């Protein structure tokens, strides 16, 4: 690992648009934030606020068109990924920055076995590995899948949602990336499974010490994993600070609204508050 001379990831004034002319939307509008080595940063915001666009932009995964990387820079280990060639970028994807997505059911290719999908990543980025199969088994073992050798021949549809997400995580970890981007990894799962996956992520954070960018619209799940919170609202960052600080003393009314949305245990039948945009804009 390189010595901690600067942040692992530094996003400066990133702007990403969709469309052009009078139908243009600024999905991400002049945002800056950083993630340090070993740090877990939660990006929180309601649906449509630009979280996924930010995440996918890190390795230029958004197809252009419709997306346009209009401005700013994304420095990963000091190199601007927005300026990298496709070839160099491919060496960052999966190898340096790995992703897991919201819908494990549709994020795994239905016609390939688990083994194929994990092995593919290993073969791409770790050519020195001779026993790819053993490495795949190790990855499955790491994410807590029992009898990993037997699961290798399965197709994604034969696994439950929680299992599928574990496979996604195993696939991401198989190449030992520096940064794991988890885009709403639990949103599509049952509540009990959500907890297991979050526990797993925390476990991985401790075991591997990798940086994690955890995207969610739910403040409730980040408290005991994230070191820092970045709050996004309509393509902009409205708040950025240590988790405890933000949770206790939210500065922005939108953050407060998001925190209020979390149903607290014990608080009986508290009504979920719908977020009133006009009110937030007025008070911001």
């Amino acid at each position, binding site marked *: 690992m390189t010595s901690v001379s600067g942040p692992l990831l530094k996003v400066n004034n990133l702007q990403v648009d969709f469309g052009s002319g009078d139908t243009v939307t600024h999905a991400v509008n002049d945002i800056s934030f950083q993630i340090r080595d070993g740090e877990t940063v939660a990006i929180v915001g309601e649906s449509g606020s630009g979280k996924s666009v930010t995440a996918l932009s890190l390795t230029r*995964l958004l197809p252009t068109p419709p997306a346009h990387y209009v401005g700013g820079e994304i420095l990963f280990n000091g190199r601007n990924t927005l300026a990298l060639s496709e070839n160099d970028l491919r060496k960052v994807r999966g190898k340096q920055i790995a992703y897991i997505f919201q819908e494990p059911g549709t994020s795994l*290719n239905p016609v*390939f076995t688990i083994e194929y999908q994990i092995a593919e990543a290993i073969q791409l980025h770790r050519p020195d590995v001779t026993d790819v199969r053993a490495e795949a088994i190790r990855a499955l073992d790491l994410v807590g899948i029992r009898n990993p050798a037997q699961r290798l021949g399965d197709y994604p549809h034969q696994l439950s949602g929680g299992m599928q997400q574990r496979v996604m995580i195993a696939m991401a970890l198989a190449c030992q990336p520096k940064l794991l981007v988890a885009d709403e990894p639990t949103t599509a799962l049952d509540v009990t499974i959500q907890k297991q996956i979050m526990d797993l992520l925390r476990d991985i954070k401790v075991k591997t010490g990798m940086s994690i960018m955890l995207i969610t619209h739910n403040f409730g799940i980040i408290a005991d994993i994230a070191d820092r919170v970045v709050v996004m609202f309509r393509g902009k960052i409205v708040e950025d600070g240590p988790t405890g600080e933000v949770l206790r003393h939210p500065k922005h009314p939108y953050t407060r609204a998001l925190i209020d949305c979390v149903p607290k245990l014990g608080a009986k039948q508290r009504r979920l508050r719908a977020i009133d945009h006009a009110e937030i804009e007025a008070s911001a």
Partner: protein
Amino acid sequence: MKTYILRRLLLMIPMLLGVSLLVFVLVYISPGNYLDALKAQRDIPAEFIAKKERELGLDRPWYVQYVSWLGRTVRGDFGESWSYRIPVAELLAQRAPATLALSLTSLVFAWAIAVPLGVFAAVYRNSIFDKLSALSAYAALSIPEFFLALLAVIFASQWGVFPTGGLSSIDHDYLSPVGQLWDYVHHLILPTIVLGIGGAAGLMRVMRTNMLDVIQSEYVMTARAKGVPENVIMFRHVLRNAINPLVTSLGFAFSGLLSGAVLVENVMNYPGLGQLIFQAFMRKDRDVVMAAVIIGSSMLIIGNLIADILLAWVDPRIRYDK
């Protein structure tokens, strides 16, 4: 899976009974019968025709005729062609290879064109190539098959490089084995193109649409996020998924192997089953018609079954056993 296939095959029996009954009745109520041509000739005595009618069983009520036909057929005897005076099975066996060859070559032709074109049209969508291929597909789908066949015949007669019809040349028997093979191929080229072009256009459009659908899917994003090179994504991840519905269509292609070339064979004077069966319908050569219908229907039903089985085979998510 086995029980599923068995059940589907058993269901074929009532279906074929219904089909044969329907067509038998239709043939029966069609005005006139096979002997009309004889009756029209003055010098043939009425007694002779009456005798013939008795011989063929045409004087009995239709249900008696049907039952006797059915009895024979389930014993595997398709009867005799009244116009060719040879057993129907023998007649069909003589003609089937030509049609089978034509159907298969046109199928291969269609796939060989459609899959690459569809893939490239999707990969380079909105390019000139995409637009040109879309336009050609429209044209190919809109031109009547028989008109294309007619144009091909005219083209052949004007240009002289391809034969204007038939299965082989007059001097076929005097050619070397290689020469004979080339002779067959030479006669197959134009009919293959004519018969295959419509299918190619249809397949191409489906292939392109499927590719574009799959390119949008999330697992393609996953592959990209893993750092898989774009060409591997296209030709392995996307293609494997996009081609599935097409593989299924092979089942339907099987359905038409013997009955799909009637028009082309007739116009291009290609002596296959299609031509034979059309003439049999026109001459009311009943046993030939019935045999053709039974074979055609069986292949249609089996073709649908094959399509379903292929679907389960290419898509691991689909299982038929409960």
